[in-house]
């Protein structure tokens, strides 16, 4: 099959990919752009390890056809920290609050949380849990993760 050309914004930069039309966004990110932050857990939309943010919305990149990101803006965990390497409050909170154990779910958790906080800077615990319901974690039991998001909310509020 002939490759297709897809142009979009990836973590703030204009990029173009030449990939087979059947590739998912996840495969393109990992194998074409070598961004291995987004993980493949299930490959069928169940686990959230592949979550990225497209035009402000959290999506499962494993079932997102790459052809559909044409002209859109994609944010992965690699684009979460500032260009000078300053960690995003969510990243700091996850580290300081033991929101990370093996780390496999972390990039997806961060991206779901990022989309939530951009839309709703002061979510309730319920809203946090709803936003993370599509992200499975086999290690933490979720409590530290929810608390990490709450901590990030505080950090962001203090800063502004």
């Amino acid at each position: 099959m002939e490759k297709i050309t897809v142009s979009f914004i990836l973590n703030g930069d204009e990029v173009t990919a030449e990939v087979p039309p059947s590739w998912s966004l996840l495969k393109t990110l990992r194998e074409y752009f070598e961004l291995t932050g987004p993980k493949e857990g299930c490959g069928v939309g169940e686990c959230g390890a592949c979550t990225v943010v497209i035009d402000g919305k959290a999506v499962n990149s494993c079932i997102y056809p790459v052809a559909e990101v044409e002209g859109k803006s994609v944010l992965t965990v690699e684009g979460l920290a500032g260009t000078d390497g300053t960690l995003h409050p969510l990243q700091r909170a996850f580290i300081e609050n033991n929101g990370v154990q093996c780390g496999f779910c972390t990039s997806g958790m961060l991206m779901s949380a990022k989309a939530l906080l951009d839309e709703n800077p002061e979510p309730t615990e319920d809203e946090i849990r709803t936003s993370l319901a599509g992200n499975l974690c086999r290690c933490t039991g979720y409590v530290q993760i929810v608390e990490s998001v709450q901590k990030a909310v505080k950090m962001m509020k203090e800063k502004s």
Partner: protein
Amino acid sequence: MIDYQYLKPKSLEEALSLLESYGERAMLIAGGTDVMVGIRNGKFAPEALISLRGLEDLAYIEKDNDAYRIGALTTHRMLETHPLIRSELSALYDGASQVGSVQIRNVATVGGNICNAAPSADTAGPLLALDAVAVLKGPRGERNVPLSEFFTGPSQTVKELDEVLVEFRVPAVMGEYGSAYHKHSRRKAMDLPILGVAVSLKVTDGKIEDARIALSVAAPTPIRAKRAEDFLTGKMVSEDVLEEAGKIAGEEASPRDSLRGKAWYRREMIETFVPRMAQKALERLKNR
């Protein structure tokens, strides 16, 4: 992994002509949450996917004098966050807000949910109980199919291969009904229902003027429990009456034994949740 072409028509006309020329070799894709998973699992092996995502003008929620109009490309997230849906077509809010996860709801569409025609589709019961009509467009023109005539079997509908679902119309009068949907599943999130029960009621001074009851995963397709509806119509609201309606609905269903639940269990849950959803619909009417 199979390879396929990915076609991105910019208009409905273009999509229809692509559908016509590819015929059975192509498949429509909207949010892709069923299609991409189906391809991955080997259920589908299309030569081409025809994407509807470029038809952004098919994603809308509107209300005019005749009807609520919901574009086929409307995502579950749009339904979940739209005030009109939440307050006036509450059963649809209940259904859409419980589909998968936020990530799924951000891309999955209501048109895809209905065209995929899983017996467990979470918007099927609510749309049935709200008397929705599906608007199909194809080379032979446009036709309106009441949702109660839309499903013909698991994964099967009256939609022809060369037709595109463009809109759902819910009669404006449904705004005067109270409605509710219960998704019965083992886990709170990310699980398909064992059973779905949707009820809508129009009540004046305690008298039920009209009732709709829809059941999913209770038969090979989502169904209306018409005998239970007829039983309710004209009666004064009471616990006994609602319970009796639940029993009748249970008799009308033809659930099967499956991994998720036994037939007898589904029937008992219908008896339980028809009255409960009726109560919830009534409460919502009161609180308006």
